């Protein structure tokens, strides 16, 4: 029993000692692990805050340089000039926004300039091809419309001119409620005395006095001093070919405005310089190879119109009609003019298609004003919603953007150019 008791006590003591040693080993291992974790933690912290911080600062500095570079790139391109027009790219974007088209026509000397292409080669060189995109919304601008009329003043035009004189001011006034429209009427030299068919009542000559002068409506007599070569070998009062050439070159009374829509409306029922063809009455100019004076006058009109961006909409009065001749105090059927109707149609169509216009065949003198209204509303050009250049940004890239206000100086408004760059 005693032995058992002693052994039991010893066994208990050993157990306590064994447990204590076990704990000590565990604590030793744990403390080493804690130390190792602490050191690893310190290393990670150093890496993250010390080096990582410097790396982040470096990234920020580089990003600042890139941002400055993108802005400088925009300045560099926008203030560089297009060498034919001498205008800066910023001005060209403004003009393109005004006309609502990427291509701006600066007339016969400078020619057409594609603003999109001019931007593209510059930005491609600076940012790299496919690394940028520009968008400049075109504001809702309706460019000014300037109309020049060239009116045949022979006897057969009396009723048409009368209609025009009565109604044109109202038509222009109505149109001006929506947009700026001005009209200048050039009366070809001659000015026949008008009279009423049947009664032969004197109606006075076709002259500017018939048109009430207004701020937006002017009438000017087209004299040889203003328009050399007028009439040529035929009749001046019917030379709408050379007449439209002079109107295209000289412009309306106020002069051509920059980037306005220019419309030319010859109103006649004969070929230029008269269907009598200088009294020969052979309508020879129907053969273009003959180069008759009439055809040359037409060509002068076409060439000058094309050079000056004049869109020609000829209005052809009915040549097969009876007119009052005050001189003989009788009514006369215009046989010669009627014979040349097809030739007049051909000439008028030719100038219309060469300039982007359309010929109107007036069946009744009262149709004049309707036709003019149709002409003016038909020339409203299709405007692009915005100027776009470069490549649409791909998804998932970091974009840097610059926004630049662009003055549209011709209309007094601003648009905004948004430029995006990515690398």
């Amino acid at each position: 029993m005693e032995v058992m008791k002693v052994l039991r006590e010893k066994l208990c003591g050993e157990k306590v000692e064994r447990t204590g040693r076990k704990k000590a080993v565990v604590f030793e291992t744990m403390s080493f692990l804690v130390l190792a974790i602490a050191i690893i933690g310190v290393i990670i912290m150093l890496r993250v805050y010390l080096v990582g911080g410097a790396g982040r600062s470096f990234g920020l500095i580089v990003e600042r340089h890139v941002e400055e570079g993108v802005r400088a790139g925009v300045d560099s391109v926008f203030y560089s000039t297009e060498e034919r027009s001498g205008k800066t790219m910023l001005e060209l974007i403004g003009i393109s926004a005004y006309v609502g088209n990427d291509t701006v026509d600066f007339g016969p000397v400078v020619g057409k300039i594609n603003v999109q292409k001019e931007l593209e080669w510059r930005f491609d060189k600076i940012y790299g091809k496919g690394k940028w995109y520009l968008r400049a919304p075109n504001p809702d601008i309706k460019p000014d419309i300037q109309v020049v009329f060239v009116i045949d003043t022979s006897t057969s035009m009396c009723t048409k001119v009368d209609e025009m004189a009565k109604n044109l001011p109202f038509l222009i006034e109505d149109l001006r409620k929506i947009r700026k429209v001005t009209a200048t009427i050039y009366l070809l030299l001659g000015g026949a005395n008008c009279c009423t068919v049947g009664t032969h009542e004197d109606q006075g000559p076709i002259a500017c006095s018939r048109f009430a002068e207004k701020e937006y409506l002017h009438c000017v007599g087209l004299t040889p001093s203003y328009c050399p070569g007028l009439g040529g070998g035929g009749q001046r009062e019917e030379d709408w070919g050379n007449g439209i050439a002079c109107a295209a070159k000289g412009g309306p009374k106020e002069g051509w405005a920059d980037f306005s829509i220019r419309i030319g409306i010859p109103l006649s029922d004969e070929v230029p310089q008269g269907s009598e063809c200088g009294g020969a009455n052979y309508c020879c100019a129907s053969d273009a190879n003959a180069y008759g004076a009439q055809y040359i006058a037409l060509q002068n009109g076409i060439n000058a119109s094309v050079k000056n961006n004049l869109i020609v909409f000829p209005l052809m009065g009915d040549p097969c009609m009876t007119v009052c001749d005050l001189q003989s105090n009788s009514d006369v059927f215009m046989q010669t003019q009627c014979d040349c109707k097809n030739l007049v149609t051909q000439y008028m169509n030719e100038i219309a298609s060469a300039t982007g216009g359309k010929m109107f065949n007036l069946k009744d003198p009262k149709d004049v004003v309707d036709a003019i209204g149709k002409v003016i509303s038909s020339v409203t050009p299709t405007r692009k919603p915005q100027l776009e250049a470069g490549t649409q940004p791909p998804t998932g890239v970091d974009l840097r953007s610059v926004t630049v206000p662009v003055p549209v100086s011709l209309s007094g408004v601003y648009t905004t150019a948004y430029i995006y760059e990515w690398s």
Partner: protein
Amino acid sequence: MKSSVKNSIKNFRNIRKMKGQKGQLSYIIKPLSLVMTIVLLLILYNSIQNFGNRERQAQQGLDLTADATNILLVLANSEDCLAYRSAVTQGLYANIVDVTKLNSFAAKYSDSEPECARSLDFGWRVTVIEFKRSAGTTIEGSKWSFGANEFSRDSAFRNSLDFSIPVAIRYSDKLTRAGMMQVHLVDGELEKISGMLDWYCEMFKSNRFTKGSAQIMTSYPLSFNTTDGELCSMSKEKSCRKMWCPIDFEEIKSGGTYILKMNYADGAMVVKS
């Protein structure tokens, strides 16, 4: 009873045996822990050193990058440098450089940096290239270059950087061309030492200091060429930098760390090591 006594004795012996083993284990673990702790501490020390170096390098790169951007912006936007000022509006235009100033800088600063954008830490040379269109392709037109044309070499060279910024080059009201201004910036011993001397020169000239001292580190002998006013580092190939002040410079005949003592007398800076 006998068998239980026998078992107890057997247990007691086993425990004794285990106790011996535990004692042996503790003898292994303790030194092992100590060795591993030392190893960990060494790793920590090494990491701190390593990170410190990397941070210093990053800082140097940071300074170099920041200076490159600043130099380009100052050149393109400061009226004292190349920026164009309109005679009509008296306004400066961002990043538009005047071609007459460009021509003048290219002629005047063919081998040194202009004062308007001088860096006291780094040396640089700038090249301006214009772009134009010819026969449907974009070509490089005129080219202008100015700034230092010699930099620290070999062991004296630390780092360099090439950065560029777009500019517009204005010839007249009707002609401005797009272009690019590129800077080659160099971090080296010669640039640091000459920058420090130039800084002291300015301080002496403006009477802000009468004397000063600074510690420098050079890998190569240094001398001053009084004829050209250049401080030269005698690396395998000599490289020199123009200084702002005439210097009476005591030649440094071998590489090392020196403390330079400077003062200003009779319109020249006296530098002794």
